[in-house]
């Protein structure tokens, strides 16, 4: 996900009360056809959003077409066109990479399709509602966890993915928290979403800084790689992951095993994101309004204390 | 005597071409049996059937009384049939030894390759053949003649019952040919049956017992060489009596066309000076490796000269690349038409027009299709190029016709000075005769030809003047009257004081 949604609050503030008369006229039956463009089916996070969308849509009797944008705004644009061609009344998409698919959104809007965004958004007046996590805030949580698992003078690390802007936001959130603290921060790396690269990066960081106290991983694949490197090196560096994927929860709950290192996780609530966006779309198509122009789903921390409730 | 190998009623049909029709022949051990015929008569096709490259459409191959059913060359090799194909079969990246033993490498007891033994054995064979080559040398770095010697070594190392050689001498000079013939004679003594293909009929009397003539895919006759003359063979090849096919004419020498002075390329040739005039054919003779090709390539701008001057029509010129040579109306017919002469997968018309395009295009660099079509059709007629039309892909033409396309290409480019490097290599008598006529016409119209040839009769039959090269230097010049086999060989060979 990403954090481009902040400014959409004011630009689409009045969308709430906008009535779309033609649409609400032929709707109301309960069976709406809606399209969804999800960031990537290859990431567990998005898969969970997808599952949330599908289960909620089923519950509400909505016909949902869920497609994969492969984290490529060009493909996302194509998908929006395809969904419009298929006659969707409303489309929700995750605009990965800030301003990603604005023209596509506005074109679809001009053709009478109600547009929604989730996970990350863009500043377009055409957007009726945005539901998503604030990645920057999540990054700040990560920074705080780093502080918690280290002491003054310690070295801490971040495994980054700066070519994905959502991950860049997390990195910046954490860095801003650490800025004025007495910690040496090692970051400047790019694990490219590849667990094996993350393992190598962690290995190199440990070699240069054998007593690293904790590492914040901007995604769960990075945490997986970091775990492998830390175990192999026999270090007791702590891992703070991001995403809230099942393998993270399992690791944290395994306090005698992997949980010795992987101690906490910044979780988004992808299921809730998916469910909420579907609810809002249904509401808009039935009643012509949404609850709020922006519905934040707050990230939260999972650790040994609350992991059991999550599984 | 029992024949060791028989072919019975062989026919081979390629899509659109019937290459062989009902050919039957017997081959005897200890005998050289030559196949002759014009280009495209089906000689290579026949031996490819015998050696498992092609399967015949009809008919059978019988080895030692048993019917063979080859589907791959490997099966024929295992049965004792080895071949030197018309196209050089050398793997450039492998060493000489590896090439010689390709497909039958010696193994150590543990199953690994026995490289030492391979190199030792290969060196032995090379020494035995008196070829000055290291077994560890990289084959791709050798010249065509040396590569051909590797092929011959390849055959000798195998214990074959039948050895087939398809035009083995086309890239060899007299010295290597002698070495080859020595080997052939030894194979004969070992009672090997040899099938031999050549366009140089002179060779027949030297090593060959029996000759089979093919024409248009049919067998015309099998004769004992002792019973017939070269003329008879030519007659049955082309189906009519043929006179002197060199068509020698008297030419009148015109103005100076090309003069080079003290051309040098370090380690390759030095102090090359000669003059060529309009209205004459200058022959360049010498042993393979004398550096003739290199001199001509340098004049044409394909390689750099270190020093020396070039004058075209009396004016000194600088030629840095072939483009500049072409602009001075020089054309080069290279010695290896497949590698450096033709775009084999392109149409006749595209090949003919290639060097002339920049001068015959419409405004803005657009192709002038009308001109291209007209000029190609025109030259196809003029040079009697045998092909369905100007859109025929060059790959499907016979060697002689391919050669004519190259000639057409340079005639269209308005060449006044034509350099021909081994222009008739692998071309049959009939096509040659036509080619010589074209050369004569070109010279009569004021052109100038420089012809490199390693074939003595050709040089003697065609050239108005012979320049002989030896080890990168010009060793002498002979007028038409002075030139004969002895005088040329005298200048070409390494004399005792030179070595």
């Amino acid at each position, binding site marked *: 996900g990403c954090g481009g949604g902040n400014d959409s609050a004011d630009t689409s503030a009045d969308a709430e009360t906008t009535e779309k008369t033609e649409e609400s006229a032929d709707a109301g039956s309960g069976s709406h056809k809606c399209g969804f463009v999800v960031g990537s089916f290859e990431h567990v996070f998005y898969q969970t959003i997808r599952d949330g969308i599908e289960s909620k849509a089923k519950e509400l009797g909505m016909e949902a077409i869920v497609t994969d944008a492969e984290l490529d705004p060009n493909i996302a644009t194509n998908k929006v066109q395809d969904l419009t061609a298929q006659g969707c009344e409303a489309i929700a998409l995750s605009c990965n990479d800030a301003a990603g698919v604005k023209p596509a959104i506005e074109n679809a809007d001009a053709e009478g399709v109600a547009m929604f965004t989730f996970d990350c958004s863009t500043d377009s007046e055409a957007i009726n509602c945005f539901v998503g996590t604030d990645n920057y805030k999540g990054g700040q949580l990560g920074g705080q966890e780093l502080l918690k698992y280290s002491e003054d003078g310690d070295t801490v690390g971040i495994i980054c993915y700066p070519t*994905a802007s959502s991950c860049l936001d997390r990195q910046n959130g954490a860095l801003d928290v650490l800025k004025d603290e007495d910690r040496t921060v090692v970051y400047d790396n790019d694990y490219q979403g590849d667990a094996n690269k993350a393992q190598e990066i962690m290995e190199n960081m440990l070699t240069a800084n054998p007593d690293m106290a904790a590492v914040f991983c901007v995604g769960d694949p990075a945490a997986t790689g970091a775990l492998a490197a830390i175990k192999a090196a026999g270090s007791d560096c702590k891992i703070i992951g991001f995403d809230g994927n099942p393998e993270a929860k399992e690791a944290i709950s395994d306090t005698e095993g992997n949980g010795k290192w992987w101690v906490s996780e910044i979780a988004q609530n992808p299921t809730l994101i998916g469910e909420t966006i579907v609810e809002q779309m249904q509401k808009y198509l039935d009643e012509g309004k949404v609850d709020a122009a922006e519905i934040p789903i707050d990230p939260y921390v999972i650790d040994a204390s609350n992991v059991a409730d999550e599984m | 005597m029992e024949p060791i190998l028989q072919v019975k009623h062989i026919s081979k049909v390629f899509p659109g071409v019937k290459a062989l029709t009902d050919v039957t022949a017997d081959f005897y051990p200890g005998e050289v049996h030559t196949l002759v015929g014009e280009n495209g008569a089906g000689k290579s096709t026949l031996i490819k059937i015998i050696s498992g490259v092609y399967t015949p459409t009809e008919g059978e191959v019988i080895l030692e009384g048993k019917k063979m059913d080859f589907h791959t060359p490997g099966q024929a090799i295992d049965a004792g049939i080895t071949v030197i194909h018309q196209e050089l079969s050398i793997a450039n990246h492998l060493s000489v030894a590896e090439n010689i033993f390709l497909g039958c490498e010696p193994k150590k007891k543990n199953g690994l390759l026995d490289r030492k033994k391979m190199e030792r054995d290969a060196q032995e064979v090379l020494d035995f053949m008196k070829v000055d080559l290291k077994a560890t040398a990289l084959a791709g770095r050798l010249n065509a003649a040396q590569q051909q010697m590797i092929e011959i070594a390849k055959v000798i190392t195998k214990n074959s019952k039948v050895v087939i050689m398809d035009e083995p001498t086309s890239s060899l000079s007299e010295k290597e040919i002698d070495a080859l013939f020595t080997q052939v004679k030894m194979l004969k003594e070992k009672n090997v049956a040899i099938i031999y293909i050549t366009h140089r009929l002179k060779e027949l009397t030297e090593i060959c017992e029996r000759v089979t003539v093919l024409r248009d895919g049919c067998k015309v006759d099998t004769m004992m060489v002792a019973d017939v003359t070269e003329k008879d063979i030519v007659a049955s090849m082309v189906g009519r009596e043929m006179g002197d096919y060199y068509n020698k004419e008297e030419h009148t020498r015109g103005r100076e066309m090309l003069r080079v002075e003290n051309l040098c390329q370090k380690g390759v040739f030095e102090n090359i000076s000669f003059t060529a005039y309009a209205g004459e054919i200058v022959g360049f003779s010498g042993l393979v490796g004398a550096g003739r090709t290199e001199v001509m390539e340098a004049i044409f701008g394909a390689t750099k000269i270190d020093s020396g001057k070039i004058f075209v029509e009396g004016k000194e010129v600088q030629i840095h690349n072939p483009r500049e040579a072409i602009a001075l109306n020089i054309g080069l017919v290279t010695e290896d038409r497949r590698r450096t002469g033709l775009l084999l997968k*392109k149409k006749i018309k595209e090949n003919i027009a290639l060097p002339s395009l920049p001068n015959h295009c419409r405004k803005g660099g657009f192709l002038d299709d009308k001109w291209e079509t007209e000029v190609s059709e025109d030259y196809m007629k003029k040079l009697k190029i045998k092909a369905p039309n100007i859109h025929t892909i060059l790959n499907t033409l016979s060697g002689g016709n391919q050669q004519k396309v190259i000639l057409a290409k340079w005639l269209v480019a308005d060449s006044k000075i034509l350099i021909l490097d081994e222009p008739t290599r692998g071309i049959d008598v009939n096509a040659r005769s036509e080619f010589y006529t074209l050369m004569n016409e070109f010279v009569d119209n004021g052109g100038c030809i420089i012809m490199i040839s390693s074939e003595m009769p050709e040089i003697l039959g065609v050239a108005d003047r012979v320049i002989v090269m030896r080890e990168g230097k010009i060793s002498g010049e002979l007028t038409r009257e002075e030139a004969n086999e002895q005088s040329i060989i005298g200048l070409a060979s390494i004399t005792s004081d030179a070595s």
Partner: protein
Amino acid sequence: MDKVKKWISENVVIVVLILLCIGFGVGNPTFITPQNIINVLSQMCINALLASGLVYVIILGGIDISVGSVVGLSGVCAALVGLKFFPNMGIPTALAVLILTGLVMGAIIGGFNGLMIAKFKVVPMIATLAMLSIARGLAYIVSGGQPVYGLPNSFAFLGANRLIKTEGMPNGIIPVGVIFTIIIVAIMHIILSKTVFGRHVYACGSNPNVAHLSGINVPKVTLICHMLCGITAAMGGVLMASKLQNGQPAGGDAYEMYAIASTVLGGTSLTGGSGSVARAMFGAAVIAVINNGMNLMQISSYWQKVVIGIIILLAVILDMAQQNKGKN
């Protein structure tokens, strides 16, 4: 009858395209709506641009795997130029910014590739692999790793607008991007098939020795081909930037694969010497139709990968088989 057979054997890609269209049309009627056909056309633009230039270098017997990165870098640069110097540009200025940036960036990057290959004799695969890495790195560096956004709507005219608006289609019928692509592809086609330079490209690809000895400046031809390939890729990049109304440093990642597949489906031989821009367009259309059709039929994106691989394989095998038949 024989003529039909011959035509089929020479145009397998068109046959495959028609079969795919019929298949998807039956599978989902939406596929053949005018709206969707326009979508397919506009979705294939970027790939078509990339393929049109790739044809040149592939005919030479080379390859350019940096085209995807060039898309990213030139898109970012166009967006930056627009943002820095013409924040309030009108449509003509926007077009000029996009096209000129595309030309300049493409010529520079392609020229660099060409120089490495023609002058320093680096194998094309490696020279352009290096460029793949370099250009992508530069795209992130100049953009600071973030998409370059905040451009006016005029910037999106080229990529996102459609002409001829009707009541039924309030966004217009003909995408400007499609027109842009057709113009460039047509130019590329004409250069290759109707000019002396084009003939020289084929000659160099068939046999560089022969070309050299026929007076052709082979290094120059190589250089120009790579520049053309760079320019079409950069045009793809600016088109994408305009379509998205911002510059994406990650844009075009891995697009080289589909562009190469398009040219090969269009009968361009990877060993050089033959190929055609027009046919590569059919190859690009096949890829676009597969992607679009599978989306409409809601095939899972995991299976899409498998299916697209199989279709590419089948199409190439079919083409081979037909060509060999044609020979016999």
